[in-house]
C-alpha cells in the first residue's frame, strides 16, 4: 500500500477553543486513482495535507496510522519528509497563478525542480525541463520555457505545474482541485492528461474535488466526505447510482442540461449521518 490512513483526526486550537475538522478518516491507496469529493469544509484537503505533513503549526493531528509507503508520517522528521515531498509524492494545487513564481521563467522553474531532485548541470536541467514540457503536451515547449507565468493561460500554467511535479518521477500524485480554476474544455484536457500520465507511469493518484461527475469519470474509487467523516467509499463507476442520502443529495441538487428540473431539490442534512 502506497498510502494508509487509519482513524485520522485533525483539529485546530484557537482562541475560542478546540475545533475538530477531520474526525476519524480511514482510507488506503495503492497504484490506483482515488477521488475524494465533498463540500468545502468537509476536510478533504486537510486529509491530503496531513499526509504530506503540510498543516499549520496550530493543527493537532492524531491517527492510529498515517503512512506513506510504510514510512510513519506522524513521527517522521522534517528531513525525512523532504525526501518524500516533491520527490516521491507530487502535489498539484488549484490555481497555477499562485503556485508559480511570477518573476522567474517557466523553464527555469521546471529546471530547478528537476535539478533539486536529480542533480546535473544547469544546461542539462533546462533540456530536461523542455522534455517535460513536451511530455505534458505543450506544443512549443521552447517558447513556453522562455515565458513568464503571467504570459501563459491558466490551462498552460496547470500543465507547467504538472510538468514540475513529474520531474522527480514520483510514485504518488496528489491533485487538490487541479481544474476548478479552468474552463470546461480545458478541464477535460488536463484531467485526461493527468490520467494518462498516471496510468503510463504506474503512479497512485489522489484527486480531490468538489465535482462529483468529474471525479466519477477519472478515478477508480471515490471517497465521499462530509463534515470530517467519510460517508461512503465506492467504485467510481457506481457513484452516480450511490445509495447514501448525502451522496444522492449532492447529485440531485445539480442542475442538468439533459434532464431539466423545474426546481432544484435542496440538500437536507441529517445529524444521523455523523453517527
Amino acid at each position, binding site marked *: 500500500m502506497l498510502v494508509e490512513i487509519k482513524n485520522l483526526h485533525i483539529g485546530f486550537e484557537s482562541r475560542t477553543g478546540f475545533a475538530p475538522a477531520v474526525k476519524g478518516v480511514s482510507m488506503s491507496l495503492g497504484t490506483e486513482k482515488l477521488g475524494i469529493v465533498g*463540500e*468545502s469544509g468537509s476536510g478533504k484537503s486537510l486529509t491530503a495535507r496531513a499526509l504530506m505533513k503540510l498543516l499549520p503549526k496550530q493543527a493537532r493531528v492524531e491517527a492510529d496510522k498515517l503512512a506513506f509507503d510504510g514510512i510513519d508520517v506522524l513521527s517522521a522528521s522534517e528531513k525525512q519528509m523532504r525526501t518524500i515531498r516533491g520527490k516521491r509524492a507530487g502535489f498539484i494545487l488549484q490555481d497555477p497563478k499562485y503556485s508559480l513564481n511570477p518573476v522567474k521563467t517557466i523553464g527555469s522553474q521546471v529546471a530547478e525542480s528537476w535539478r533539486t531532485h536529480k542533480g546535473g548541470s544547469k544546461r542539462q536541467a533546462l533540456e530536461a525541463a523542455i522534455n517535460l514540457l513536451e511530455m505534458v503536451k505543450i506544443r512549443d515547449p521552447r517558447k513556453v520555457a522562455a515565458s513568464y507565468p503571467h504570459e501563459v*493561460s*491558466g490551462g498552460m500554467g496547470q500543465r507547467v505545474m504538472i510538468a514540475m511535479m513529474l520531474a522527480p518521477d514520483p510514485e504518488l500524485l496528489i491533485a487538490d482541485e487541479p481544474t476548478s480554476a479552468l*474552463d*470546461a*474544455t*480545458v478541464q*477535460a484536457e488536463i484531467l485526461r492528461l493527468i490520467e494518462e500520465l498516471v496510468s503510463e507511469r504506474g503512479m497512485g493518484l489522489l484527486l480531490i474535488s*468538489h465535482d*462529483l*461527475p*468529474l471525479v*466519477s*469519470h477519472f478515478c477508480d474509487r471515490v471517497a465521499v466526505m462530509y463534515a470530517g467523516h467519510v460517508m461512503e467509499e465506492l467504485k*467510481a*463507476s457506481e*457513484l*452516480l*447510482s450511490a445509495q447514501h442520502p448525502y451522496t444522492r*443529495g*449532492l447529485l440531485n*441538487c*445539480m*442542475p*442538468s*442540461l*439533459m*434532464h*431539466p*428540473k423545474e*426546481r*432544484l*431539490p*435542496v*440538500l437536507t442534512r441529517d445529524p444521523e449521518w455523523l453517527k
Partner: protein
Amino acid sequence: MTIEIDNLRISFVGREVVKGVSFNVAKGASFGIVGESGSGKSTVLRAMAGLNNDWSGRIAFSGEDAPLFRPPAFFRKVQMVFQDPYGSLHPRQTIDRILSELPLVHGMDNIDDRIAKVLSAVALPQTARFRYPHQLSGGQRQRVAIARALIAEPEVLLLDEPTSALDVSVQAEILNLLADLRAERNLTYVMVSHNLSVITHLCTQVGVMIDGHMVEQVTAEDLRLGNVNHAHTRELRSLSVELEEPA
C-alpha cells in the same frame, strides 16, 4: 424592461475583445451567455451595467439608448451581482451598512424597513443584519450580494457567474432563490456562466460566445435536443452531456 444590444464593440488599449455582439431580451425573460474565459462574456455584461464607459454600438433598456455615462437613476433599474461574494462585499462594513449604502445615495426613505424586507426576500435571518461578511458562509454572502442588488428595486439583474464560487448544494439554493425572485418581481435576467447546465436551468435563451463574437443564439430546449449549428456550441454541449452520463 426589454434589453437591446446592437453591434456592441469593446476594445482594451487597441485590442478589440468584443467584436460586434447583438442580442435582444424581452421583458421578464432570462438570457444566458456561455463561453470560455477570455471570450468577452463578462466584458459585455460590465458594459451593460455601466462599469465600462468605452464602448461603441447600442445598448438600450426599454427602447431607450443608454448613454456612455449613466445617470444615477439608471442604477435603480439595473443592478449587477458578481461572481465572488468574498470579494464583492466590504470586509469592514456590517451587512446593515452594505445594504444601506444604495438607499442613502439615492435618497430613499424607510431604509430600515427596506433592509428588513430585502433580508427576508433572500431568506436571510434578521440577525444577519449586524454581522460582518466574514461571519457568514459563502452562500449567505451571495444572498447578501443579491439583497444589495434587490434593494434598488431594479427591473434588470445582471448576473456574472453568480454560483461558480459555491458548492453544488449551495448553488441549488441560490438558483432556486433567483428563479423565485424573477417570478415574484417580474425581473429580467442576463446571466453569464461557463456552465451550460446552470445556464439552461435558469435561462430560456442562450448566446454562445467565442473570441469576442456571439456565434450562435439558441433556445435552451434546442440546446438540450442538440439542434445547434456552430461547432463551438456542439463542443460545449457534448462536454456537458458527457459529464452527466455515468462513466
